[in-house]
């Protein structure tokens, strides 16, 4: 059994996972209510909340799992990437526990965690491709075996989730904006012409800043002309563009690399538009599409424990000199 800890952004989370596949407990203390008043995550506030919540959340995870630290084989913690001041709290708490209980310590990459959230739903079959879409990341990751990650495409500017938040702010929607756009998109029709950034032929990279600017310009131009723009239609058009690029690129990569599974990962995986399109796309395909439930798409510690389990089995260990690494590479 592995104890996972995650504090890379605004969730203080701890979880106990058995065999890397079974969630025994999964506790997440969200700070979203506190950050709402600022219209986004304030790093200093996030760090302060993590310190307040850390031991409480871990204790709750152990209690809910009905285990003691004696039964835990190792402690896995998000090492990066993320907000450095937030990561530091999880990393140091994990080090203190590893030291106090003399347990192995394992530093986990946050995105590896998001991908491994899928293993809590369905066993991985290699080679596989993972589409990682979150507030900070938009990546296509190829995995040929456990613990091996090859980034075949990534965003060159804004992450998809970032574009969602910025567009939402322009539309005057409350933070966090992603779910609001998703909801509005379902009520509107994609009637506004917006660009799709396919980039050079064959590229699996993404770019969303042009799309974001196009949405902002459309709004401003309409305003200047005194025209009324239907926010629902604009949201639908924006979402249509994001989803089309994401799913088309994923589909092409699935074919080129001849993978057995496509795993959806990251907070934006909660997006209904994206889920629906992928489900339709792979309905008749031999490739297995795995989409975790919402609670495992957003940041949590079960995914860190799941990824940490594989690293533990592969003999990977961190020392007490491990530091938070906001720019950690996958």
């Amino acid at each position, binding site marked *: 059994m592995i104890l996972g800890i995650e504090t890379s952004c605004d969730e203080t989370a701890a979880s106990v996972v058995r065999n890397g596949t079974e969630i025994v407990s999964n506790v997440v203390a969200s700070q979203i209510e506190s950050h709402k008043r600022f219209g986004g995550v*304030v790093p200093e506030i996030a760090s302060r909340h993590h310190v307040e919540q*850390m031991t409480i959340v871990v204790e709750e995870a152990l209690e809910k799992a009905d285990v003691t*630290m004696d039964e835990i084989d190792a402690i896995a913690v998000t090492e990066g990437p993320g907000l450095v001041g937030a990561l*530091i709290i999880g990393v*140091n708490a994990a080090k*203190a526990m590893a*030291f*106090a209980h003399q347990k192995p310590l394992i530093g986990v990459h946050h995105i590896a965690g998001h991908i491994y959230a899928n293993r809590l739903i369905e066993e991985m079959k290699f080679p596989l491709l993972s589409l990682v879409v979150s507030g900070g990341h938009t990546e296509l990751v190829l995995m040929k075996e456990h613990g091996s990650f090859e980034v075949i495409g990534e965003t060159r500017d804004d992450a998809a989730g970032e574009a969602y938040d910025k567009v939402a702010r322009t539309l005057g929607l409350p933070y966090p904006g992603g779910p609001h756009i998703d909801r509005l998109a379902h009520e509107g029709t994609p009637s506004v012409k917006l660009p799709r950034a396919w980039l050079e032929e064959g590229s699996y990279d993404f770019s969303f800043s042009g799309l974001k600017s196009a949405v902002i310009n459309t709004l401003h131009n309409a305003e200047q002309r005194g025209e009324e723009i239907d926010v629902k239609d604009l949201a639908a058009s924006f979402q249509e563009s994001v989803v089309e690029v994401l799913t088309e690129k994923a589909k092409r990569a699935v074919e080129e690399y001849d993978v057995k599974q496509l795993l959806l990962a990251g907070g934006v995986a909660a997006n209904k538009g994206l889920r629906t399109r992928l489900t339709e796309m792979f309905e008749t395909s031999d490739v297995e599409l795995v989409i975790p439930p919402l609670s495992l798409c957003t940041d949590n510690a079960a995914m860190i424990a799941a990824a940490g389990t594989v690293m533990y089995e592969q003999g990977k260990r961190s020392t007490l*000199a491990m530091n938070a690494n906001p720019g950690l590479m996958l």
Partner: protein
Amino acid sequence: MIVLAMDTSNQPLSLAVMKDGAVMGEKLINIKRNHSLQAMSAVEELLGSLDLKPGALDRIVVAKGPGSYTGVRIGVTLAKTMAWSLKIPIVGVSSLLSLAWPGKYFDGVVVPLMNARRGNVYTGLYEYQDGWQTLEEDRNMAMSEWLTHLAEREENVLFTGADVEVFWEEIQSVLGERAYHVSTEEAFPSAAVMAKHAEGLPDEDAHGFVPNYIRLAEAESNWLKEQEKKNG
């Protein structure tokens, strides 16, 4: 009774292990290196060199602030998580008191200083009489204002801590010959002094233990100001 004390509030890392009130071992590192990287390993090394296992600890004392937000948080997170893990009590001591120790036999009052930028300091007023006494609570204020206040006391004042240098000219211009400062080899915190002082302090609960930042986060104080404007 074995006590581990630690201070990571500013650049120096100060650790001490005490047995029944006497120092078993100390560690001081005073170079620019991230506490998140070094503090836990330093604790492990110090305990190891004393042939102590983590389970031997009976109490943890930590500098709870003020200081660098990140530095204070690292110490507090390590301390509270160790205390909770080992099921032993935690006690917080002012990071300013940790700097006051060179003034133990000084004839006058002791003022530890930390540079809080833009002319502000974290400071407090201490005196040693049968142990360290807090004459005025830790605060964050403009140095100029603090000096005016200190001038009214008409006592000798010893300024402690590495940041005294920054303000020395200003201090002298207000307090003149009543002002004294520690020399550089005394300008670091002492976890051992914190541990000793903590003997007289009650145990605290690890879950509820938080740093004493003194200042609100900038975003929060701005937000409060805006709320006041809206309501006022």
